[in-house]
């Protein structure tokens, strides 16, 4: 299983370090983005990635390499801090920028409107979070976010329990 890790926690976060080290060993191939070393700005909602330059974000920063990596790896694991019971804004900025993976076209699936996917790829997304997150809500949110990107949710797990995600990547 080829694993992509996107870590918005500081590089020196001891639990994240340990989790990344062990998960890297378990995956057949692994790539980790440390966003503290990257320039990732918020989505500006311009819709260029849907209507003007389909699939390409108009914001020119370091995010495009993450967009390409979503397509190259089997599983994406987000590692995030939390605020107000949810992921913190750094992770939300990362997730908001995923829109180019969907097209502007929509269709209705299981009673709700969904964007037609841009690529023929079944994404698998999971979340490891630090701090006081609401696990039930975060799992619900990841599952909803996966629905709209035609992906499979691996759920949300506190970073202390990172070993729980090993079964999903080995």
């Amino acid at each position, binding site marked *: 299983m080829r694993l992509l890790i996107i870590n918005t926690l500081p590089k020196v976060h001891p639990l994240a370090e340990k989790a990344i080290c062990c998960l890297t060993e378990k995956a057949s191939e692994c790539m980790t983005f440390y966003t503290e070393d990257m320039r990732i700005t918020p989505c500006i909602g311009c819709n260029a990635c849907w209507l003007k330059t389909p699939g390409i974000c108009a914001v020119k920063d370091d995010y495009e390499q993450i*967009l390409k990596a979503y397509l190259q790896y089997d599983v994406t694991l987000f590692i995030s801090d939390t605020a107000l019971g949810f992921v913190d804004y750094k992770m939300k900025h990362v997730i908001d920028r995923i829109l180019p993976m969907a097209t502007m076209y929509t269709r209705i699936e299981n009673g709700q409107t969904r964007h037609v996917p841009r690529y023929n790829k079944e994404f698998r997304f999971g979340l490891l979070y630090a701090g006081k997150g609401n696990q039930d*809500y975060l799992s619900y949110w990841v599952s909803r976010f996966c629905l709209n990107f035609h992906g499979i949710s691996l759920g949300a797990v506190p970073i202390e329990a990172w070993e729980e995600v090993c079964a999903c990547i080995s």
Partner: protein
Amino acid sequence: MHFVIISGAARTQSQSNTAKIIAAFCEGLHNGGNTSEIWYLSDRKQWKSAMTAFEENENILFALPLYVENVPGITLEFLAGLSAKERPGTRISFLLQGGFPEISQGRCCEEFLKTLPAQLGCGYGGTFIKGDMFGLSLLGKKMEAKLLQPFIEIGRQFGENGAFRQETIEAFSIPEYLSERQIRMSNGPLRYVQRLVMQYFAKRLGCRTKLDAKPFCGKELQETQEETR
């Protein structure tokens, strides 16, 4: 009553659907004798004043678009910077708008929004969800006015007691899901109409490729893979 309205939209005010909705909403709000001040988080220079307005006022409304099942990152960044109020009496309400037609698409975000006022030492004034707003800026002035018209009445009703009443939500925040007939139409003939309409708008915006183009497939992606290995 005086209301502080904070737009959580990431688009600049002149391009923002949320800003247009706020303008219509305020028309109704002011018709009832209320006053308001509006802060736009898309302009970071306004953040300090918006925080002060939040601290000093008791009637707060966040108006925001749905971004990946929750609030936009910039709204979250702003919210995380607020301190919980120690003195009771403040009420926070939310006006959430999205592009999908079904209100059910906003429920996940609503679950989060419900938890926020208590975390900020405030009371909850409800969440009003409105869908089908994607085309607001694309469909021309006539359709824009039609789509915005209900917000005048929603604003008027909101202004009566500073919170979203259940009757307002039931009357205007619909449909929870599309009907069977609407689904058949959407997945049938309307699907082709939608494609043509979107292609028309895209062309007008200067798009030179297919809307379902796959820019990161093939040669470019292979080159990236080789670079990252």
